[in-house]
């Protein structure tokens, strides 16, 4: 995955959320699937509903809104998260 690639929530479909403390469930109207997300995953997906960002920009947004240590491991963590969201059809590459 190229770190310069930009991502956003898959256009044309809605994400319906319900959140309890540290966990969220999200229903994707495009697939009919429901996913359970931890708070970081939910934060990233909610951010990509509003913005089109690359991995560096996602990490920067997270670091502004949390006390997370954004080291190399964290970059790998976010890369895995983006890959998983993409596989599930929750997000797509920005084609612009």
């Amino acid at each position: 995955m190229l770190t310069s690639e930009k991502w956003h929530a898959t256009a044309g479909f809605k994400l319906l959320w319900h959140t309890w403390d540290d966990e969220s469930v999200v229903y994707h109207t495009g697939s009919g699937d429901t996913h359970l997300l931890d708070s970081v995953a939910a934060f990233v997906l909610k951010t990509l509903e509003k913005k089109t960002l690359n991995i560096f920009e996602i990490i920067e947004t997270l670091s502004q809104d949390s006390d997370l240590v954004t080291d190399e491991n964290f970059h790998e963590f976010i890369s895995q998260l983006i890959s998983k969201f993409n596989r599930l059809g929750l997000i797509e590459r920005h084609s612009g």
Partner: protein
Amino acid sequence: MSKITDKTTNIDKARRRLAKASVAAVPVVLTLTSRPVLGAYCSVSGMLSGNLSRDTSNVHCDGFSPGYWGNLGAKRGYPAPYFEGNFIDKNGDPCTHPKDIDYPNSGGTKFSDVFVGLGFDGVDHTNETLLEVIWTYSGSLAFYCVAHLLNAASGIPTYQLTEAQIIDMWNQWATTGSYEAAPGVYWSGEDIKAFLEQTQH
């Protein structure tokens, strides 16, 4: 002043939640799919011979639903040799949602390129695309057969039905009103739908 204090406290809690969550080694994203409660029979022969003699509670055939093939499945692209159609609307503009596609001019695979066009119910799908059938005839046998044709073509490891079987189901029903699942055993359109539905999640 108290409002400001409350807001600050809320922000700190949110920051703590994110920090705590970061401890996980891998991102926590679990898919909670809805599956048949009683398990499933993934093949016609299994359905015919299994009945009460076999515990199917852990069997999942993992076919996608027609709703998937009308939405995200279309957006991601149908499996070869089938084509969902170009994402161009009736004004000739690009569109993002499959329901907005101008089906007749989309270049999508026509129902009658695969199946007998005229159903036993008298509905003629000859000039409709596969995607158009899914969006226009929700709940019909055509709607299920299109979805399961695409499941069969997708290479889902646990999905056992073949494209030829799905085509045969539709074509027999379209011409005679039933499908001969085994010699002398005939399924109605509703039987076929029920069988296909329990192979999807």
